[in-house]
């Protein structure tokens, strides 16, 4: 029996266990699954952004060879299936009945024997629409003459305003601003954070497979939260939850896109219930970009009050949030704007006030947390933009201003003006490391010298603080379910372990990193620990993977479950070695008698004994489960510095260097952390310079395919540079904070700050994303800076 002891499992760059299937093309994604007798669904969608539905004629479609049935909203209504709960408590219709509220809204489902027949059927469904006035600009949604977009809930909500929410001390904040207006400095900025889309390369889809004989519904689903989806399916269909099985197999990227419930899923379920056959529905790219949850779309006005020396005093923010046709924003119910009020960021503000007004428009619904913990991206962007503006007005270097205003390392745990308790941080150390690695002083000298020659170079800093890993369950929920997470570990008689976790991976590498956590706790090799996830029939209930909560919450559950296993192993060791438990000492992989290191039992021997020679006073076996409700969130942070050169002929922005220093607490696998940072940075570059889902005045979406929605390729993405500091979370069992969203949250403002910095000397204070060559060239042209 192996007695290998593994002492350095955490922090090792183990190669990924999941790679073996993916590099062979043997991953199993939802669309790879084919079931006997399977039918295919395709959706008839609205061409109009706002219209009454006069008539739906399916008769021609039913004549199309291969078409089995056409399902409309009225059919679903009759079956009680034409509604879905949204995360914040709205109700979303599955198939439009009276009216359509946005272009590409779902109107009918065609079910056929092949993909092609289903598409033919969609083309043959005739729908008559009567156009209505369209609300595209959220600033006009509250005009008195604006059409009411949601008459279905006019009793509860008589206008297009979904909510007004505010947090903070208004009187103290206003007083601080009044004081700074006289005795200090106030900076203000309007910022639009455009509507973008997570756009994983695999679109959303499912196969619903209902067996009438057993009453069992199996749903293969592109899901980041399979247990929550199961519960919602039970609520909506009325089927008993123990007869619903959600399988989220390999998932080709999620980034928040695969957290919500979409009408296509319910359509496939309804079709399987009706036909008794498995029904597959896979959306195409245009459907993905145009109808599933967008992100951001915040119109922000932000102000900082500071004293003359530049010490920040107060932050005041008002935001208009465009939520589209339904209130489907991803957020816990206690926090209508999610964690947006983390916007005091890394700085020691005394007072703050944040107000958010959310409105309906004739656009696709959403407001998903795209690689971000519930609006922390918007929050971080505004504060890092404003700090640069403040530095400019004070004539200070933006790094210097940040260093002066950071929350000090000794101030943690730190209670923010908006009532968050930051667990740990050392912001100075991260910024100073980034400055050293990129030679900040040298870059500033180069910039000054270049400016004399008329060359445009900019340096942008972002010193962000994140807030991730929701719960605690008393404050955070998804459709009312508290945000805990879970792990179940089974150690087999031969000393190998199988663990199942409540979160699900879509590129996160859980099968490797969670094996490392268990291996470290039990002294096993990660090769001897397999991780399973995504099947609700086998995995313990969990809230899923989003908001960087896998490592902070399910990772904690995994460590705690492993410790339960180890505690039982200690009892077995005491029995076998005939000593008291208190006489035993643990080294990774082995208990031994204090003072007699030769007298011991390995974890493998103890696992064997648990099944073969268990103490009579213990239950046999060596298994444990843990449901972990975190006592607090975790607060990863970092400092990024971006260097850009502007092309005066074309307006193009060239990112010369980008240095990212992250602090995610304890690092489980540095290779995977670095890989996640690379990917997240590229998803920050994307909105900063390329991606936007905009709409024309008629509500036609622009950006509904990959020719118009410009996802960065290898030609646009720079060669990212990374480093890290390590400030463990004091409340997480292994000190880990989560990492994968930090770079997406922290990087756009570094890029924008750099471009604005390159143009600050001609009076430019802000440029809204995406910073396209056209926008830059227009500025250059206006300022007389263009060259041939």
């Amino acid at each position, binding site marked *: 029996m192996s007695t290998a002891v593994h002492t350095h499992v955490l922090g090792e760059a183990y*190669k*990924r266990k*999941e*790679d*073996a*299937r*993916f*590099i*062979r*093309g*043997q*991953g*199993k*994604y939802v*669309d*790879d699954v*084919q079931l006997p007798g399977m039918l295919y669904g395709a959706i008839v969608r609205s061409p109009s952004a706002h219209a009454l539905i006069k008539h739906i004629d399916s008769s021609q479609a039913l004549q199309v060879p291969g078409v089995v049935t056409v399902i409309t909203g009225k059919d679903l209504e009759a079956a009680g299936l034409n509604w879905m709960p949204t995360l914040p408590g709205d109700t979303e219709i599955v198939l439009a009945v009276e009216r359509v509220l946005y272009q590409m809204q779902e109107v009918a489902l065609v079910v056929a024997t092949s*993909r*092609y027949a289903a598409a033919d059927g969609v083309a043959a469904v005739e729908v008559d629409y009567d156009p209505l006035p369209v609300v595209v600009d959220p600033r006009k949604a509250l005009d008195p003459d604006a059409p009411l977009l949601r008459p279905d809930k006019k009793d509860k909500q008589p206008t297009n305003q979904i909510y007004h929410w505010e947090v903070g001390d208004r009187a103290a904040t206003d007083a601080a601003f009044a004081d700074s207006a006289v005795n200090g400095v106030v900076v203000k900025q309007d910022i639009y954070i455009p509507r973008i889309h997570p*756009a*994983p*390369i*695999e*679109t959303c889809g499912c196969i619903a497979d209902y067996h009438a004989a057993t009453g069992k519904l199996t749903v293969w689903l592109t899901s980041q939260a399979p247990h929550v989806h199961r519960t919602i399916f039970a609520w909506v269909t009325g089927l008993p939850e123990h007869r619903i099985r959600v399988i989220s197999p*390999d*998932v*080709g*990227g999620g*980034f928040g896109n695969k957290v919500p419930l979409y009408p296509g899923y319910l359509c496939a379920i309804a079709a399987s219930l009706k036909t008794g056959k498995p029904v597959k529905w896979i959306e*195409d*790219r*245009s459907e993905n970009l145009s109808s599933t949850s967008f992100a951001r779309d915040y119109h922000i006005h932000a102000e900082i009050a500071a004293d003359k020396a530049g010490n920040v005093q107060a932050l005041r923010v008002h935001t208009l949030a465009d939520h589209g046709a339904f209130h489907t924003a991803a957020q816990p119910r206690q926090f209508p704007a999610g964690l947006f009020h983390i916007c005091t960021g890394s700085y020691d503000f005394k007072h703050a006030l944040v107000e958010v007004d959310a409105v309906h428009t004739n656009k696709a619904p959403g407001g998903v947390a795209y690689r971000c913990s519930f609006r922390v991206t918007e929050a971080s962007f505004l504060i890092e933009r404003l700090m640069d503006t403040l530095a400019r007005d004070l004539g200070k270097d933006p790094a210097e201003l940040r260093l002066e205003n950071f929350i000090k390392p000794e101030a943690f745990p730190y209670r923010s003006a908006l009532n968050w308790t930051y667990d740990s941080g050392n912001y100075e150390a991260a910024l100073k490391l980034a400055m050293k690695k990129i030679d900040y002083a040298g870059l500033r000298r180069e910039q000054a010298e270049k400016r004399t020659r008329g060359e445009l170079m900019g340096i942008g800093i972002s010193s962000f603080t994140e807030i991730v890993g929701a719960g605690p369950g008393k404050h955070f929920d998804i459709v009312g379910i508290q945000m805990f997470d879970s792990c179940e570990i089974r150690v087999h008689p031969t000393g190998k372990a199988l663990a199942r976790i409540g979160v699900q991976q*879509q*590129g*996160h*590498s859980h099968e490797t990193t969670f094996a490392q956590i268990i291996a470290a706790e039990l002294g096993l090799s990660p090769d001897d620990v397999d991780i399973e996830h995504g099947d609700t029939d086998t995995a313990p209930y969990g809230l899923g993977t989003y908001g960087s909560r896998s490592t902070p919450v399910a990772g904690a559950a995994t460590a705690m479950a492993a410790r339960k296993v180890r505690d039982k192993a200690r009892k077995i060791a005491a029995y076998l070695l005939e000593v008291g438990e208190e006489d035993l000492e643990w080294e990774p992989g082995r208990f031994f008698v204090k003072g007699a290191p030769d007298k011991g039992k390995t974890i493998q021997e103890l696992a064997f004994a648990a099944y073969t020679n268990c103490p009579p006073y213990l239950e046999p076996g060596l298994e444990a489960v843990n449901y972990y409700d975190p006592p607090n969130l975790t607060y990863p942070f970092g400092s990024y510095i971006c260097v850009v050169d502007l092309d005066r002929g074309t307006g193009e922005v060239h990112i010369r260097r980008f240095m990212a220093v992250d602090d995610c607490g304890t690092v489980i696998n540095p*290779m*995977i952390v*670095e*890989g*996640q940072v*690379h*990917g*997240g*940075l*590229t*998803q920050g570059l994307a909105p900063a310079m390329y991606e936007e889902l905009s709409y024309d005045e008629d509500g036609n979406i622009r950006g509904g*395919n*990959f*020719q118009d929605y410009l*996802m960065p*390729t*290898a*030609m646009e*993405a720079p*060669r*990212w540079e990374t480093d890290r500091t390590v400030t463990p979370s004091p409340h997480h069992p292994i000190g880990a904070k989560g990492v994968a969203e930090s770079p997406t949250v922290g990087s756009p403002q570094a890029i924008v700050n750099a471009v604005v910095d390159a143009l600050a000397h001609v009076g430019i204070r802000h440029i809204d994303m995406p910073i396209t060559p056209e926008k830059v060239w227009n500025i250059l042209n206006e300022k007389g800076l263009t060259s041939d």
Partner: protein
Amino acid sequence: MSKHHIRVTINGTLYEDDVDARMLLVHWIRDSLHLTGTHIGCDTTSCGACTILVDGKATKSCTMFAVRADGRQIQTVEGLEQQGKLHPIQDGFHQEHGLHCGYCTPGMMMTAVALLRRNPNPTEQEIREGISGNLCRCTGYVNIVKAIQYAAEKMRASEQVPAGSGEGGE
């Protein structure tokens, strides 16, 4: 819908079928032949998840009709590994952490194989340009570039192109 008889060699195996004229190659490969390693990400020739080699050339199979593959030699991701030995590009993606969710990976690897056949010693810029028809949302490309460099070095060192049987020249 007219049916057409096609004979296509994929990864060294001859497949014969009667397909609709409008059947896309990627659907035939995935749904009829059950070679599901080739993926679909955009339907519009933008993302490259469906990239395969047709007569040795990297080709986006979502925008090619199956009938056009008649008589041709095709290689998919399933044909990279030979006699239990990974192709250097597969090894490179594993060693250099060139994949996260794995969805773009098969198409990315097939594009890289074609690139390295054209240019066994590409610069970083040539690699970036060579894979610019393939989108990856997860990795930020840094480690994909490294993975291709790893494979290039391995392949130059062994002076062979173990790219599987059944393929033609370019």
